[in-house]
Every structure is written in structure tokens, then in C-alpha cells.
């Protein structure tokens, strides 16, 4: 039996709920657009239900822990192709082991979710550092990013606290997903954001920053390989100091 969901976090949790209610053990919980109907499997389409999702959500916190829930959620943000199945298997082990599930790294299902979650956390932490804002003419600070994982929601609070007196936009251009901050609250949107094409011509401070970046490096210690290992080339496009 394969369950097919809409791929949202709530959708996957709903499917987990259904598996237990139906006393079924589905081979997989898959996403509609990814799953190719195969003749070998029975397929059940699961409609997302907030209420059922909530019950699983609460059960994870109560029977496991807040930390486990966060781990599962972050793993989901990785957009791993078979994340539904992975979460289902993790929850199954979690219902036996409780809060210790997270430490049971001998188990491949546990390791998979832990590793995905770690990857997402790492990238989110990296972006609290390498996100770059450009000041637009209207006074809004605009940051464009193209992360591997869907991390806008993980970093928005950090910036809402830190840059709390300036309006800003964090725009994931890969997913066309944005966080908007008006100095009071953060709202998320998938609407198109209209940004002037010359937004990168910020001000003298961009030039000053690039100058600083060059001046701080020690020539006799030059090590581009090490630099790239911390700051992979795929991120350079949106890094002010890496623009010629």
C-alpha cells in the first residue's frame, strides 16, 4: 500500500495518522507530483486534514519530545524526495523508543532523518551569516538567496530580532518564497516580488565592503580551497563581496 499526499508537512502527518487509524503499514508515503503510478502497488490518496495532523504533532511532542518534532520538521524542509516515507518510519520507531529515538543512530531510518535535519540546520546557520541585504531606493533592505533547502522560515526570526528597526525582504528566488518584515511582524508569501533590476547598485558601502574583503586577506596564507569549503561557489552569485 502506498499513501499519496500533497507533500506538505501537515499532509504527511495526516497520512501517518491514517496509517495508524487504518492499522495499515504502508510501504511508502509519497507526494502526488513525484509518485508515478505503478501497477505493483495499491494506492490511497490522503486528503490533508489539519486536525489529524495536529494530533500526530502533539503525539510526537508528548511521546517523544519537542526536539524530535523539530528534527522531523527540519528534515522535511530539505525537500528530500521520499521524505514522507522517511518521516513515517521515524515516527514508528519513535513510538517505541520515545525521546531516545534521536540517539538511535545505529538505525538507518533514524540516521536518515537526523542527517537531513542536520544538513538543513547547517545551511540555515550559514545563511544567518552569508545573507546579504541591499538597500533599495525606497529604504527597504532586500536579500536574495538560493539555498539548497527551504530555510526562509528558519532564519526569518533571527533577522526580525536583529534588524528589528529596518523593513526588509528575504527572498528565496529558487522557490519564489519570501519573508516580509515591516518592523513589526514577519509575513510569508509566494507572490512575485517586484525588485528593480539595478538593486545591486546599492551604495558606497558595497564598494567599501568589497575593499575591506580584499584588504583583510593575508596573501602569504592564500587558500582558495579552504575558502570554498566553507563558502561553496554556488552561493557566490548572491554574495556582494564575490561580485567583480
Amino acid at each position, binding site marked *: 500500500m502506498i499513501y499519496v499526499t500533497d507533500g506538505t508537512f501537515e499532509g504527511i502527518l495526516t497520512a501517518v495518522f491514517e496509517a495508524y487509524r487504518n492499522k495499515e503499514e504502508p510501504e511508502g508515503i509519497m507526494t502526488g507530483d513525484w509518485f508515478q503510478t505503478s501497477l505493483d502497488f495499491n494506492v490511497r490518496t490522503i486528503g490533508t486534514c489539519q486536525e489529524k495532523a495536529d494530533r500526530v504533532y502533539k503525539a510526537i511532542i508528548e511521546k517523544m519530545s519537542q526536539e524530535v518534532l523539530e528534527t522531523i520538521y527540519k528534515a522535511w524542509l530539505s525537500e528530500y524526495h521520499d521524505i514522507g516515507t522517511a518521516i513515517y518510519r521515524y515516527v514508528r520507531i519513535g513510538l517505541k523508543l520515545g525521546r531516545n529515538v534521536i540517539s538511535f543512530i545505529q538505525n538507518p531510518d533514524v540516521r536518515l532523518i537526523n542527517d537531513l535535519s542536520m544538513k538543513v540546520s547547517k545551511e540555515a546557520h550559514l545563511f544567518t551569516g552569508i545573507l546579504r541585504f541591499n538597500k533599495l531606493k525606497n529604504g527597504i533592505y532586500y536579500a536574495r538567496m538560493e539555498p539548497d533547502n527551504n530555510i526562509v522560515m528558519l532564519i526569518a526570526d533571527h533577522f526580525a530580532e536583529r534588524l528589528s528597526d529596518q523593513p526588509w525582504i528575504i527572498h528565496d528566488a529558487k522557490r519564489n518564497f519570501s519573508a516580509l518584515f515591516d518592523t513589526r511582524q514577519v509575513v510569508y508569501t509566494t507572490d512575485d516580488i517586484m525588485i528593480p533590476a539595478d538593486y545591486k547598485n546599492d551604495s558606497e*558601502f558595497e564598494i567599501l565592503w568589497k575593499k575591506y574583503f580584499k584588504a583583510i586577506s593575508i596573501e602569504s596564507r592564500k587558500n582558495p580551497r579552504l575558502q570554498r569549503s566553507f563558502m561553496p561557489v554556488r552561493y557566490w552569485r548572491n554574495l556582494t563581496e564575490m561580485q567583480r
Partner: protein
Amino acid sequence: MRLLDKLQILADSAKYDVSCSSSGSNRANKKGQLGNAAIAGICHSWSDDGRCISLLKVLFSNCCIYDCKYCVNRISNDIRRASFTPDELCALTIEFYRRNYIEGLFLSSAVIKSPDYTMELMIETLRKLRYEHKFNGYIHIKSIPGADLSLVYQAGLLADRMSVNIELPSIQGLKLLAPQKDHQSIIRPMSYLKEQIQGSSELTIYKKRQMFVPAGQTTQLIVGATKDSDLTILNLTQNLYDRYKLKRVYYSAYVPVNADSNLPAITTSPPLLREHRIYQADWLLRFYGFRAEELLDESHSNFDIRVDPKCDWALRNLDKFPVEINKAPPEMLMRVPGIGYKMAEKIVRARRIAPLSYEDLKRMRVVLKRARYFITCQGKYYGGIDIDTEDLYPVLSEEKPPKGIPGQIFMFGSTG
């Protein structure tokens, strides 16, 4: 002079100071103000030499009245000179911060006119940042040797972290290379800071008091400008952690900038691998429960360049190995080459649920290339060869130095 030129000159002169970490402070944002400090520290970029850029690291001025032999900014050098104004420095800090280029400011300076005069200008900058610009981001200020302690106190109320750089690991070195700085002008502010930091954390238990250097004090030592051995450096480090409660000691491989008969030749390349080994040892002192005297002694006063300090220690203590992965106490697991302290913690948690097999360790990415000779797994030894020093040294030593030698230690957090 244009701001662009000043920045170029004053960043260039500051770049040999290696401490750029922004960790340890949790200064909070106040509504409607700018910035906060993240307890874990954040890197914002990595320069072409692979070092983390976290803070805007500049000198207030490079116009120095002193003549320290190892320093580019010494008075007898013919170089371009510049000084910021407090307002220029504020503008740079604030505008960089708003664009998320930096965590905050790391301010140091050459000695303009006098230590007190210099310190006053630096304090004025900090005061403007904190009060006029309502800036709550991270500030690290270097105390100028010889400045009055009342100025050290004022700076401490404004900064998150302070440092007094020792630079030269022995008094002889100091006399030879920095004759105008005396030993006392370094030690005095250091112990003063220690007392103030301790005092303020004790007092906060009773009443709310102004924060004083919440991220603690640090220092920097130059490696390779003098003939001092690794043992001298590591003993000093141990002492600084024990007696002065320093948060971090940074090390900087000496980059020759001046020709002098008392210094290494100008063509000498910086001893990066040696610096790397000392950082690894420092890490062992801070996170692994090692003491300096376990790692080095008079008969073994420098680290082996070909094996890392933990391997080096293990090879001299083979009677303590192998240890059983499923039983050894965490303190001992951490001492196994190839197992870092985070990995040790993972192992301890996982083995409570089910015993670990050799395959499990492989999947957990334990560095078995090194660890296998020092462990057993469910009673079985996987090293293949007998453990004695003769046979192990060649398999554990690094043929070539590691490819990437980080200049900041928190980069090898999870390896052994």
C-alpha cells in the same frame, strides 16, 4: 583622505590579529534598536586565505609612537598612515551591520600620542555606537598596553569582549622585540579584567548591574617570531586559562614584515602547520580535559609536525589502549584518535539503546583510519597490526600536511 583609502590601510594593518570570533555574548536586542549578539557566534564570510570574517576588524589608527620589531606599523617603517574619526567608524559599522556583512566591530589601534589618548578615542567610538546609534551588536575591543585602568573599566562597560594581546610568549622575547612595552603593562590589565568580570557576574546574582565584558577576555600569541618552544607556549596557555580565566587564546603564525637580526628572515614562510598543531592542542585543553603537561614536557618540547597532538599523546600512552567502544567512559572515548568529543557523546547515547558494531561506527563517520588501532568493538580488535609505537607511527603520520589549514579553531569542531 577618502574613507575608502583609510579602510584599505587600517584593515590591512589589522589583519594579522587573528581573533575574529563573535561568540560568547547574548546581548539582546531592545525594541526599536539595532542588533544583538548570537551566543554561538556567526561567520559572515571567508576571505581568500580561508579565514572566517565575523567582525569588522580594523585599527582605529596605524600612526604609532612605538617601535615593536615584529610589527608593520612600527614608527621606523615607511608606510601609509591613517586614522579614522569616531563618526567614520560608526558609519562603517552600522551600514555594514544593516546589510548583514558583519556581527559587529573588532577595534584595535596603534598607539597615537599616548596609550590613554588612544584608548579615549576608542571609547568615544564605542560610546557613540551604543548610545547615539543604539547599536546592540557585538563589540570586541583591544586594550592598549599601558592605558590607565579606569579607561579599561569604561571600555569594559561598553564592549562584549576585551583582549590584551601578549604577542610574545616569553619575557625574554618581549625585551628583545618590544622593548617599550613592559611585562607589567600586559599582565596588569589582564588581572584587572579578570577581577572585574568575576566581580560583575557575582554581583548580578544580587542585583541588576551593568554588563561588564559579558563574552570575557582573550589574548593572542605570535608563533615563530621568537625561539620559544611549543612547550613554553602551551604552558603559558594553560596558565592563562587556569589563572586568568581567559575565554580563548589565539595563535598567529608569524608573517615576516620587517627585516631584523633578531627576527626570522623576511623570506621565511609563516609556520602554518605549527600554528595548526598548537590550535589542536589548545582545543584538547579546552574541550578534552587534557593538561599541558600530558601533551609536552622537557624531553618532548615541540609537537610532531607529522601527527596531531592527540595521536602523539596516544602513541606515548599505548598501555591505556585499546578501549572498548561499548564500555569505555566518555572521557576516555574522547581521547581515542579519530573520535571527537561530539562523536564520543553520540556513541555514549547510542550504546544505551543498543550495542554498537564496527559497521555502525563506520556509518557514524568515526575516523576509523585512525581510531581502529585504539578500540575494540564488542570485544573484537579491528586494527590488524599489533599496537606498538614502531608499527603505528608510520600508519598514523600524515605524509603531506593537511590540505586546508584553518586559521580558526572552531572549524574542526567535530573531528578527532
